[in-house]
């Protein structure tokens, strides 16, 4: 039975109210209220100029972009073959690959980060293996530096990419590939000229979602990074938890939120187009 508009809005009301009162209003209030502490608009502008172009924040913004870009690239390179295999697999193999992606996906981020901290420590498994086969003479420093952050974040974000790419790859009409093959195209040509263009929107969506999530990442870099790997989300947390400096936190939040929402708008557009194609 189709519902009347009024009934529909009444049913939606509790959820919308939750979203507005516990999510949108707090964000707006936090930003507005904190900035109001600074005084007039020109005073806010001055403070923004001083904070956002200071060495610490500028460095963190640079770190954040660089780490997010590198992680996204790695996640794409590792995720593409995995999703391809998943989209082609059937039966038990499909279930096995899916489980390998879904189990980490639904495991707490902090547990996944801890797992890599155990593996990458000075006496961790990775160092033990490398020492054991004689590749190195003393333990490598794999954690509390950039290497640790990149490995940890790549691991945590990989499932998002794989599941996004999988959806795009699954939607490809196999007959198109067979037709190309039948007309004499080599496997490489079929892949490059047919499969890749058909899954491009999935790649873009996957890259966007991974980059968006990486930009706001907090848990993994905070635990696995060193003093040189401060990311913007960690800086926001520190301003609030350690120094109660709400205005500075609000200014950094505006930057992070603006970039995130612009990228999300692109993402929404692309996944709409992807859906429309099906």
């Amino acid at each position: 039975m189709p519902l009347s508009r009024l009934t529909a809005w009444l049913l939606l009301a509790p959820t919308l109210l939750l979203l507005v009162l516990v999510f949108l209003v707090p964000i707006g209030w936090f930003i507005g209220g904190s900035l109001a502490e600074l005084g007039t608009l020109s005073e806010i502008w001055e403070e923004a100029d001083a904070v956002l172009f200071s060495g610490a924040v500028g460095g963190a913004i640079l770190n954040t972009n660089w780490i997010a870009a590198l992680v996204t690239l790695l996640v794409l390179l590792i995720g593409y073959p995995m999703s391809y295999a998943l989209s082609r697999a059937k039966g038990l193999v499909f279930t096995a690959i899916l489980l390998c992606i879904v189990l980490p996906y639904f495991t707490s981020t902090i547990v996944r980060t801890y797992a890599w901290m155990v593996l990458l420590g000075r006496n961790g498994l990775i160092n033990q293996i490398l020492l054991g086969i004689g590749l190195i003479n003393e333990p490598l420093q794999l954690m509390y530096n950039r290497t640790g952050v990149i490995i940890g974040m790549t691991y945590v974000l990989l499932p998002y990419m794989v599941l996004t790419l999988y959806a795009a790859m699954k939607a490809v009409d196999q007959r198109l590939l067979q037709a190309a093959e039948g007309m004499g195209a080599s496997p490489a040509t079929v892949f490059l000229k047919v499969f890749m263009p058909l899954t491009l929107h999935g790649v873009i969506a996957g890259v966007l979602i991974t980059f968006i999530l990486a930009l706001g990442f907090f848990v993994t870099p905070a635990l696995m990074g060193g003093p040189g790997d401060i990311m913007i989300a960690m800086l926001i947390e520190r301003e609030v938890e350690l120094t109660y400096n709400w205005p500075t936190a609000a200014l950094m939040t505006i930057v992070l939120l603006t970039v995130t929402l612009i990228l999300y708008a692109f993402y929404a557009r692309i996944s709409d187009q992807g859906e429309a194609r099906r």
Partner: protein
Amino acid sequence: MMGPVLRATLMKAVIVLLCFGMVAPIVIVAIASFSGDGYLKFPPESFSSQWYARFLGDQRWRDAILNSVVIGLMTSVFSTLLGFLAAYALVRAELPWRRALMSLLLTPVIVPHVVTAVAMYFLSARMGLVGVRPWIAVAHSVVAMPVVLIILQSALRTVDPALERAAMVFGCTRWGVFRRVVVPLALPGVVSAALFSFLTSFDELVISLFLAGVRAETLPVRIWNSLLLEVEPTIAAVSTLLILVTMLALGADALLRRMRGEGGALPGK
């Protein structure tokens, strides 16, 4: 050039290696948690349950388990209830700006959790709500809502509107249709949504970190606090418990799907 057979074999080897790399860290933590050695060593030289004894023997860890379970259950009930009503409206009504509405409803996933957490803390600190468990559950419901809506919308799409019309023709009221037809038919989806919203809350760290205070520390918050000091072996035992809960939830969900006769597809988050 490589032969096609060699290339296929190589591709398979890469996939096996990558899949192994995805589960290995989780499996290794679970095995190491049973280590009988003085520090976390893999493979362990001897096995014991000493880290579990230390974990479960500590009053603060036991409190954390209780907090996590209570907050998780409240989140699950609250978000599934609200989400069900919303999902029904989204599936059955022709709403203007439906896409924009969906994008808005999904934003809690996209907005960095640090931002959400700091903003909620800003509000909660002024209202004396830090450390209040039901309030943390309400906050968790915001981030659990997108998962709930996605699962329930796909569950409700499988409910045939003709059945609802038939029930109404035979004199059932709108509320009666809802209770006797829609809810029972969508029940597996409802259970799925409840499971995944519980899991979202049970695993959530950043919002709890700000809102828990000292009174309502959850398991992830306790893990975080102790990891900042050192990579302690007790955490392996705690982590194994969290992994077990995840596996149970996924297993229950798979079972529900089998009962409904659906394939092994998973809900997108």
